[in-house]
């Protein structure tokens, strides 16, 4: 799993790639929460087009971050969710709480 984080106040952009399991969950949680110490962040975008595997540990991480954002009356969005992640997110009815939006059309410049 690789994680890329960009702060674009008031937003935090998080790009996840690879396999999101319990092993990966701990470092993702730590990396995001470190950034969220900055209380000026009121919108969290988690980009997931490159998530190739996800199990229920991933659900725990996402709902945990959602809770933090809700407590500060902020927003959270899942962006461009991959089919692998979509399946498990539906199973756990995560979209009832966290909104998802399509991937940005713009390709990332190399």
């Amino acid at each position, binding site marked *: 799993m690789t994680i890329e984080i960009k702060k674009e106040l008031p937003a935090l952009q998080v790009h996840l790639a690879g*396999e999101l*399991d319990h092993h990966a969950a701990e470092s993702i949680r730590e990396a995001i929460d470190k950034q969220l110490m900055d209380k000026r962040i009121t919108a969290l975008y988690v980009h997931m087009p490159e998530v190739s595997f996800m*199990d229920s540990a991933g659900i725990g991480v996402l*709902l945990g971050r959602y809770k933090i954002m809700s407590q500060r009356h902020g927003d959270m969005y899942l962006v461009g969710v991959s089919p692998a992640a979509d399946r498990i997110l539906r*199973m756990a009815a995560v979209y009832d709480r966290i909104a998802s939006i399509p991937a940005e059309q713009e390709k990332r410049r190399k």
Partner: protein
Amino acid sequence: MEAANQMRLIIPSLSENEALARVTVGAFAARLNPTLEQVSDIKTAVSEAVTNAIIHGYEGSEGNITVYAAVEGRRLTVEVIDYGKGIADIAEARQPFYTSRPDLERSGMGFTVMETLMDKVTILSQKDQGTCVRMEKEILPPPSAGQEG
């Protein structure tokens, strides 16, 4: 029909072994010619069971986990066994969203995911003896298989 086959993997309860366990069972199931979606279902279910053994069975301390898999005909059987804490109330553990460890941000969806992705999930457990989660799945060829073009 091919002969029945089986495998056994014994690994310490390290979180980095979650990927090893699911990839190994996924590869073992390849002889049934599963679709990509079926492979992903099997890997996800194995990942859930192995993670549970690490987090709940051993509560983060060290112990061994046995991952056993067998194919017979079109049927895949996987067992994930730990020799840890055991489950006191299996019916409660199976409930969607039930977790004994909300402090660890567990979603309580592990058994629900296993039951959704596999045909049958049997839990054998005894307090302080350990837990065996047996999962079975029939790998049926997709409806179009065997047709040309």
